[in-house]
């Protein structure tokens, strides 16, 4: 973070032409500026000072020409001091430097006196506040912790998919081709059904479909039941309005592997 260049709040210092009378010269103003704005003359940017002064002068001119001339003098003096500071070498302690440091000392002394005058009041103010305790945050309810809450266009999926394949081709593989689905074999499903029926005498058809986790598996179940029925391995019967399956024989020895996709 950069600190902004200090701004002179002249409005707060010079309020009327009457108040101007209090200034015995440019130096008083400099001292005032230093104490009000906590600025170091060495850190000032000349252009900043000039801009702010010229702006203020143009405002003042509309009101009081005498004040304006006073300000022109003060502004020019500030700029002069700044220039001198810049031109003097590091090792050279000019009269001006000495002057500035004495000014600094006075300013610090004054500030310290002011601060000391309020610490008692602040101590009194803090008595109650120091006795207040805050509490730890409650753990947040997790009901929507990680759930995704944006919307997407289906087309984004297709684009993503093709960018996968385009990466594969660019890395020197064969021509882009769609990967094969994981396919449920009817044979695999049939033996799974036989296993299930061995362990329980009868299972509602609905349950067999419900354990299917995908459309291809569902179709595999459907075809398996048909195949096993036609081979006389299982039998379908109505049980209180619901179709159930029961094992009535062994599965066929040679069960041709059939696969299918959706």
């Amino acid at each position: 973070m950069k600190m902004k260049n200090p701004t002179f709040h002249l409005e707060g210092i010079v309020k009327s032409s009457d108040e101007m009378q209090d200034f015995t010269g440019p130096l008083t103003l400099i001292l005032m500026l230093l104490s009000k704005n906590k600025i170091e003359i060495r850190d000032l940017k000349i252009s900043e000072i000039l801009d702010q002064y010229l702006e203020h002068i143009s405002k003042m001119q509309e009101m009081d020409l005498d004040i304006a001339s006073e300000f022109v003098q003060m502004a020019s003096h500030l700029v002069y001091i700044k220039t001198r500071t810049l031109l003097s070498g590091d090792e050279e302690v000019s009269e001006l430097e000495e002057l500035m440091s004495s000014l600094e000392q006075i300013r610090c002394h004054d500030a310290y006196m002011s601060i000391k005058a309020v610490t008692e009041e602040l101590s009194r103010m803090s008595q109650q506040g120091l006795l207040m305790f805050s509490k730890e945050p409650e753990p947040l309810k997790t009901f929507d912790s990680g759930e995704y809450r944006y919307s997407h266009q289906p087309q984004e999926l297709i684009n993503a998919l093709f960018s996968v394949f385009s990466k594969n081709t660019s890395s020197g593989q064969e021509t882009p081709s769609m990967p094969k689905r994981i396919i449920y074999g009817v044979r695999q499903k049939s033996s799974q059904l036989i296993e299930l029926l061995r362990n329980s005498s009868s299972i509602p058809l609905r349950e067999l479909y419900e354990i299917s986790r995908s459309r291809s598996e569902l179709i595999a179940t459907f075809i398996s039941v048909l195949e096993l029925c036609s081979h006389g391995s299982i039998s379908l019967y109505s049980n209180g309005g619901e179709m159930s399956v029961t094992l009535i024989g062994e599965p066929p020895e040679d069960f041709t592997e059939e696969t299918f996709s959706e």
Partner: protein
Amino acid sequence: MDNKEIESAIEAILFAAGEPIPASRIALVLGISDDEVHECAKKLSDEYSFNRRGIRLARMGDSLQLCSAPEFSQEIVRALERRKPPRLSQPALEVLSICAYFQPVTRAYVDQIRGVDSSYTMGVLLERGLIEACGKLDVTGRPSIYRTTELFLRTMGISDLSELPKLPEAGSDESREQLGSLLEAVKAEEIKQMSIEEN
């Protein structure tokens, strides 16, 4: 201390504690009996409920605890949650598209298609509730298989997987052509994207 003051003292102690505090500890400090603590706590608790305040006093066995009123849990989460989880990254979208179009899939299957390890990204999608495990594949090692969720459909603004844009049929000349033009489109999009990011 009168009862009103005891109530306030209990409130102050429980507030600063944040966690459950045994009534006996409060009783000891306030120089009253455990029963008196529970009585005053009950009154305080009734007052919170009756006035539909934002805080509640819960009693668990001998312990007492202040907590926020459950009625406002939504407001609390919305006010205090730091940031929405980030939007899906490109890898996440890729994994999601593979899951969506080829479900159910195993992690190894996704890895194979993408040519990179996708376990972290799969984890992210699981956590965001966009995919879910739906069983084990009946092969050696019995790997978990995954499918997309209801939330996935809502996220995509569709009501059924069949509403996803169609993929070209594999194998046919037609599909090669389609694939080719789609690839071109994707590349063009990528270049566009890159130039946007560079600006």
